[in-house]
């Protein structure tokens, strides 16, 4: 069962997978609390536009995707704060536009067409050694921000006006959360793909929500279920030759439905 770990690329994929699972699981807590699932989907699809721009300009696709995703995330935040359209409408416009831009640019070049599938659905072959360093940096930064400001982020998610009255910097923290959301999405792209990463930003926390009776419990279950889904999903990808994003998300969903059925069963009147 562990023979796949004899290969360098599989070891890199496993390390990347653990980092991605940790980032997504903790961030998913806030995505569920703030009902930001559509925001996550919007930013992840927009990242493809950044990847495409990186490929054709010679800039690292992940670095370009990061800049592009943060710009889109901040635009969503800015529009929903001040604009005359709702956040959902803003995402509904930016999401397909930026993704279409990415597909158009990549499709124009035969060289990059092969890469498109990997960026869309993830591949355990895609993680390079230099990607790992970037991932370590992103995971360290994201987890540090979320740990440091956890209580304030919960407060602004539930009652921003009361948080503002308590002198919590609501707007700054909101943009910080959007930034780490963009960073997490970019960190996950190679392994999970832009189409499926949004699932990892919801499903682990939903599994925690239906299983736990406290926020800490929800967070712990979210992390454990994400780690199981990613590690087992990579192994499944190895033995079935399916895209790693698909196997990871299918396992995460299976864990959610098992937890959901168990919670319904345990709360049913006896």
């Amino acid at each position, binding site marked *: 069962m562990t023979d796949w770990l004899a290969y360098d690329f599989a070891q890199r994929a496993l390390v990347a997978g653990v980092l991605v699972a940790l980032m997504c699981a903790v961030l998913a807590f806030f995505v569920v609390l703030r009902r930001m699932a559509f925001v996550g989907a919007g930013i992840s699809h927009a990242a493809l536009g950044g990847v495409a721009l990186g490929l054709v300009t010679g800039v690292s696709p992940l670095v370009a995707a990061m800049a592009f995703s943060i710009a889109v995330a901040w635009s969503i935040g800015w529009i929903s704060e001040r604009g005359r359209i709702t956040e959902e409408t803003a995402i509904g416009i930016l999401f397909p536009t930026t993704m279409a831009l990415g597909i158009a640019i990549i499709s124009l070049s035969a060289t990059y067409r092969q890469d498109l599938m990997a960026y869309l659905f993830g591949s355990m072959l895609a993680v390079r050694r230099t990607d790992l360093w970037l991932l370590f940096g992103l995971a360290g930064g994201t987890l540090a921000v979320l740990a440091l400001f956890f209580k304030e982020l*919960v407060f602004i998610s*539930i009652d921003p006006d*009361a948080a503002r*009255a308590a002198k919590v910097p609501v707007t700054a923290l909101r943009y910080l959360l959007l930034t780490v959301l963009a960073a997490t999405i970019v960190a996950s792209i190679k392994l999970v793909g832009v189409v499926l990463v949004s699932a990892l930003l919801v499903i682990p926390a939903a599994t925690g929500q239906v299983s736990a009776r*406290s926020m800490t419990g929800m967070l712990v279950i979210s992390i454990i279920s994400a780690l199981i889904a990613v590690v087992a999903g990579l192994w499944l990808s190895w033995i079935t030759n399916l895209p790693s994003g698909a196997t990871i998300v299918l396992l995460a969903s299976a864990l959610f439905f098992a937890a959901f059925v168990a919670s319904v069963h345990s709360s049913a009147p006896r």
Partner: protein
Amino acid sequence: MSETAAVAFEDVWFSYDGTNILEGVSFDIRPGRFAALIGPNGAGKTTALRLLLGSMRPTRGRVRLFGAPPGNQDEVIGYIPQRITVPRGFPLTVREVVLMGRYGRIGLGRRPRPRDHEVALQALERVGLRHLGNSPFGTLSGGQQQRVLIARALAGEPHLLLLDEPTAGLDPAARSDFYNLCCTLQRESPLTLLAASHDIEAVAHHADLVILINHTVLAAGSPHDVLHSPVLQDAYRFPERHHEPHHAHQGAAL
């Protein structure tokens, strides 16, 4: 030297999309008073509170909290909204909600200390809900949730409490309980309260200062004076039969 007002609006104008929501609003509230900001729906009550919270800035004029711009005052401000929305089934406990009231005092990025937990529990005790501390917030009734939000505000040991339609959606008994609790808390500590509400009868019965606004201040003074002011009828466009002496319709929400 005169005492600094807890709340001061000085010729405040606020426009949104070219429409004036507030037009030259001026009033002040001395520390220790229970003021009611009343007016019909759309009169600008919530806008006035948002200006005090610092989430919006006046188009013209000045808003001051204890003599300083909102957010720059040394005094602690507590805020009680109409309700807070927690996703269904989210495992947020009552104690965790109340502890949020301490976050302003704990400081950014710092962990709650034992004293913070102790103060939060005391605040829950004051609103009579200590026994529900470990219950999920979402499972409480509307009246209980409002009490938890009072406890949250009290946990911050505030100098000023801002309340935005705090009893909307509550039944008359729960409304009365809520305001009685506010009055008790005000007697026990040097607290200033400003409650925005369109529920004239309930809030005016408990406040000692009433400010009637409809984009601009129409009347301000004692509850008796404002409720008997001829401008009240114009503001709410009451049918003539409702313009009765205050004592004739006590207990009824207008």
